[in-house]
Every structure is written in C-alpha cells, then in structure tokens.
C-alpha cells in the first residue's frame, strides 16, 4: 500500500537526501527462533545460522540495489506458545519496522506468525514443514522446506526401493509418530504412500511425545510383527526408541522420520550404534550442491557443532529474503513480497542450498522444486544417500 511506501521513504530520507538512487543504510529483518522452553534446542541452532547468513550477506556487500545496505537482524524469542509467538511477532512488526520476517521452525508457531504477517502485509519466510501452512491461500507466506507429507513419502519410497526391492525385506510396516503437528503431518504421507506401494501396515499409531520409557511402545512394535519401522520422532524419543529396540532384541529396520534422528546428540547418545541408522531429512550438510560445504564448515567453526537440517534451511531462508530485497530494490514489505514471489535462486547463488534445484515459489508460497533426502549415519556423520542426484554416499546395508 502507499502508506507502506511512505514508511520506507521516511527511513531513507532520514539518513540521506533523496537522490535518484534508493540508498539506505540498513534493512531490518525480524528473526523469531525459540531459544527458551522445549523448542530451544533447535531454535538456538537455527538462530545461529541466520546470524551467519546475515554476516555473509553483509560481507558480500549487502543489498547492492539499495546502495550496499546492510541486513540488520532484530532477534527475539517467541517462546513456545501461540500467545508468546503472537506477541513477539507483533512486537517485531509494530515496533521494529521490519521489512521481512523469518523463523519459527515449529509449525504451530508458524501458524501464528504467518497469520499476523499476512494481516500486517509483511513477508514471512520459514522452514516449517506443515502442509497446512501453505494451504491457506496466504500471499505473504513463503515456505522454503519440503512439505510434511513428502517426508513420509520419501521414507517409504526409499524403503521400497532399497529395502524391499533390493534386499528382499518383507513389506510389513509399523508407523509410529509423535502426537504433534510435525508427527501427524508426516505420518499422513507415510501411510498414504505405504498403502500405495503395497506395504502391509501392521501398526499405525501416534504416541505421547517426550516419554520417559520406550519399553511399552517397543513391546507393542515387537508384538505387531513389523519388519520395517517408520518412527517420526524428536530427539529424546528417537534415542530411547533406537536404544530400546536394540536392547530388547527387536529385529526391525528403522527408517527414521527426521528431526531427532539427525541431531549431533543422537550420535553422542548412541555412539557406534548410531552408525547405519537411516532417516529422512529436509536438508543435509553434504547435499550435492555447490556452496553448502563452505557454509557448513564455517558454521561448525563458529558454533562448534555441525549444521543441522533446520539450521541449513534457516540459512537459506535468510538469503531468500536478501535476494528478495535486492530484487525489489526497496525496503517496502509488499515490494519485497512481490519480488520473492517471482524470485529464482539458482544453484550456486549464495543461499540456493536447498535440495532439488532452484528455489522458486509457487502461488501458495511453497518452494516448489524442493524435496527431502535420506541420510545414513556413517562413521559418525550423516551422509546423504537418496535420492541419487543428491547423494554423496552409498547406502550401507
């Protein structure tokens, strides 16, 4: 709208006299990763990745179309509830004059931020995966990550191709998923694809996330006679499931459902037992694309742990915003939104590090070329093994 235009002019005129060229000192981007409460672990890591991205952007000369304007991050903690997220989002929008927002990673929180961003007409770029997010016809919402349902699909396709077809494992599947947005949206894709590909689903149940003992659950899996387990779990559950399956001598192959299976702590907790574990991922630090290795190495140097999927996506999302601003040559949120909607971030361009080719948004705001990958822990590192175009390593049986 025109009033928004005025806002950005205000900002520039305050610092420079109005010339022919849009020149501003900085562009404000709001960052909303939870760094307290039960979402803090990944939120903190993702926030670090955003900071790294901003440094990279600024080091590379900032936003050139705005005369080398620097990205200025306004970071805040949205906590872990819709209410606190709403407050944090509005605070950034109303008091910090942000041009764009990124963050959340938890789909529940993104449901809130996206609502507020939509009403305030501020572009919001996220890596949250829920299918629901991009199904609401929002104009200011952009999702760089694969959708939740695709994760399940990829898990099952991989199992079909590598386990059932190649290794002759019986297609008897147990699906268990945490009772969260993330769990249920992934599980839907799992079930659908498993049915399509002729799996016999012997168990399909949500479980209470954050349990203290996996034994009852594993008992149940054992009793079901499944040969392949598709768990959708966060870290703590993933560790206990993996450990307990082994200790109870359940003969089953696990194809993990992301998040928990990919974190450094998973390896730390399981030690050598982590090796060989397979999981789906929305991103991996070795995906076969240019530029990733450099980012991953620098991140590790700076923050002491490897770049996980959420952090990788957070890094990419920040660049998407930067490219959008560059293209819009304006700090006006609507202009930036329009630019992002038409943006194509190519491979090799900084931040174009999502699997599946160019970053390019469809009319729902979803990055339409992206897809999940499958990783396997090999010698203490998560290696991408599927699909073939992204793989850097062979599946070890």
């Amino acid at each position, binding site marked *: 709208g025109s009033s928004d235009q005025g806002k950005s002019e205000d900002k520039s005129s305050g610092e420079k006299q109005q010339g022919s060229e849009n020149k501003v000192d900085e562009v404000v981007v709001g960052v909303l990763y939870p760094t307290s409460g039960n979402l803090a*672990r990944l939120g903190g890591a993702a926030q670090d990745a955003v900071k790294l991205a901003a440094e990279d952007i600024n080091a590379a000369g900032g936003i050139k179309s705005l005369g080398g304007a620097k990205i200025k991050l306004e970071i805040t903690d949205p906590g872990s509830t819709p209410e606190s997220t709403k407050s944090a989002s509005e605070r950034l929008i109303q008091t910090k004059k942000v041009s764009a927002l990124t963050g959340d990673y938890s789909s529940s929180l993104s449901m809130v931020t996206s609502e507020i961003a939509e009403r305030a007409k501020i572009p919001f770029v996220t890596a949250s995966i829920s299918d629901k997010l991009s199904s609401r016809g929002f104009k200011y919402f952009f999702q760089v990550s694969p959708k939740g349902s695709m994760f399940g699909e990829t898990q099952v396709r991989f199992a079909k191709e590598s386990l059932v077809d190649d290794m002759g494992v019986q297609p008897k599947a147990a699906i268990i998923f945490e009772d969260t947005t993330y769990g249920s949206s992934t599980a839907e894709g799992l079930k659908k694809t498993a049915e399509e590909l002729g799996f016999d689903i012997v168990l399909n149940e949500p479980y209470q996330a954050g349990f203290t*003992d996996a*034994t009852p659950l594993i008992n149940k899996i054992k009793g079901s006679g499944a040969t392949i387990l598709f768990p959708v779990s966060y870290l703590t559950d993933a560790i206990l499931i993996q450990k307990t399956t082994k*200790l109870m001598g359940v003969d089953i192959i696990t194809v993990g459902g992301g998040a928990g299976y990919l974190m450094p*702590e998973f390896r730390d907790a399981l030690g050598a037992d982590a090796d060989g574990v397979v999981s789906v991922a929305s991103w991996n630090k070795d995906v076969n694309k240019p530029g990733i290795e450099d980012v991953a190495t620098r991140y590790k140097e700076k923050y002491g742990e490897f770049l996980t999927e959420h952090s990788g996506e957070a890094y990419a999302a920040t660049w998407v915003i930067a490219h959008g601003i560059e293209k819009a040559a304006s700090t006006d949120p609507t202009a930036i939104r329009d630019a992002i909607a038409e943006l194509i971030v190519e491979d090799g361009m900084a931040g174009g590090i999502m699997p599946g080719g160019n970053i390019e948004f469809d009319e729902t705001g979803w990055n339409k070329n992206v897809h999940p990958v499958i990783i396997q822990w090999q010698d203490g590192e998560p290696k991408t093994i599927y699909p073939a175009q992204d793989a850097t390593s062979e599946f070890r049986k």
Partner: protein
Amino acid sequence: MAEIVPQIIVSGLLIGGVYALVSVGLSLLFGVVDIVNFAHGEFLMLGMYTTYWIWVFSGVDPLITLIISIPVMFLTGALLMKYLFKRVIDASPLTQIFLTVGLQILLQNVALMAFSANYRTIQVVYNEIVWNIGGVTIQISRLIAFFIAILLSIILWLFLTRTDMGKAMKASQLDRETAKLMGINTDKIFMIAAGISAAITGAAGTAISTFFYVFPTVGVSFGLMAYITVILGGLGNLKGAFVGGLLIGVAEAFGVQYVGADSGLLLAFIIFIVLLTIKPQGLFSKGVA
C-alpha cells in the same frame, strides 16, 4: 497377547520405581514443611547435571558421583529452605505454589543459560546389558535405578518413623511453636528436611542419568508424575508415594499397550482421577477428623 503382560508389568514397575523415588522426595517436603514444591522436578534436573558434569570431567561411574551429588543437593535444598521457602511457610498454599512456580521458571532458565539447550547423555557399559528372564527383558541400568529407589525410600522411611529426628520433623510440621517448646530447633529441622528432599531427588536424577538424557526442562515430566503420585498416595505419606509411583508406572505401560501409544498418560491420569474420587485424601490416608 497375554504373554506380553509380564513384560508390561515389569517395565511399568521399573519406571514406576523412579517416579516413586522422585515422589518420595516431594512428599517429604510436604510432609514436614507443608509446602508443595512445584520446582521439585528441577531438583531432579540439577541432580542430573551435577552427575553429568562430574562424569564428564572425571569419567567416574555416575553411581559413584552420588557421593558428591547427594551432599551438593542437600546443601542446595537446605539453602533454598533458609532463604526462600521459609518466608512462605505460613502463607496460603497458593502463595507457596506460585513462589515455587517462579523458582521452577528461574531454575530451568538458569540451567538453559548455563548449560545450553543441548541434550546430554552419559555412557555406561551396563546401559547396554539386558537380562532376559522367561521372555521378559530387563534393562540393567533401569533395574539399578529401581533398587536405588527402593533402598533410599526404605532408609528414609526408617529415618522418619524410627528416629527422634524423624518424629521431630512431623512434630514441627504439626505445630511449630510447640515443637520449639520441646527443644526442637525447627529451623534446622526444616533445612534438613528440604536438604533430604533435594538430595533424594537428586539421587533419583543420578540413577536415571544412566539411561536418560539431561536438558534444562527434563524435570517437567518427572515433576508432573511426582505430583500425581504423591497426591495419589496421600500427601506426606511416604508409603503412599512409593506405591503410587509403582501404580502410575504400571498403569502407563498398560495404557500404551491396550489403549494406544498416545494414551499411557491418559490412562494413568484417568485411573488417578477415579481412585482419588473414591478416596479424596489419597489411597493411604488415615486422616484426623
């Protein structure tokens, strides 16, 4: 499916033992000082971090760290009593609840600031060992935790019922002024009670740290189970807390198997609600009219 029942019971009892020990600590503090400590789960968390860091720096077996973590936690509890809880001893239960809720928020976030949100685990050999007895698998680390729970609970119970100081704790709870007239130093008694409560709960943290992970909010779920358990057994009733813990553990295991994997807690809570509706002052109450 009946052959799975013994396994369910055993699993339930093993985790129930841990709930029991955490609950016993909570019950003690209530029984003596009349305070329900909503930061109780955070004692567990502190105990786990203490164990973890000692293990990291010295590499000794976590169970040996009890020698250090018990006194450290005892001191923590005693100091909290002296500087915090004591100020609300005579206040309404609500005031107490909210003081401890504040403490809970504080401790969780101080832990977050100090140790980050990372999940940390301790590696011990016996975590990898299981026994298989007639088709029932028993994880040794959980069995050890279970026995620690039983042992500490029995010691505590004997202390409270058989020693003068134990009885003096009860007396101090019932009537502080009169207890003082008997020559009982109630301030000291309360500090000791809070110390023991924290130490026992910290020890529970040590016991589970061999098969569970540590993070700043790890106390929340155990804390919740402890409140449920303690109320189920009757506040301040140690035996009740112990039996309640086992009961809740078993109910949860059965719930997962027969109601749904997301319904272990649901069943445990519903059983709790039904039992308490029948016996509103807890299963083992013998209250005074």
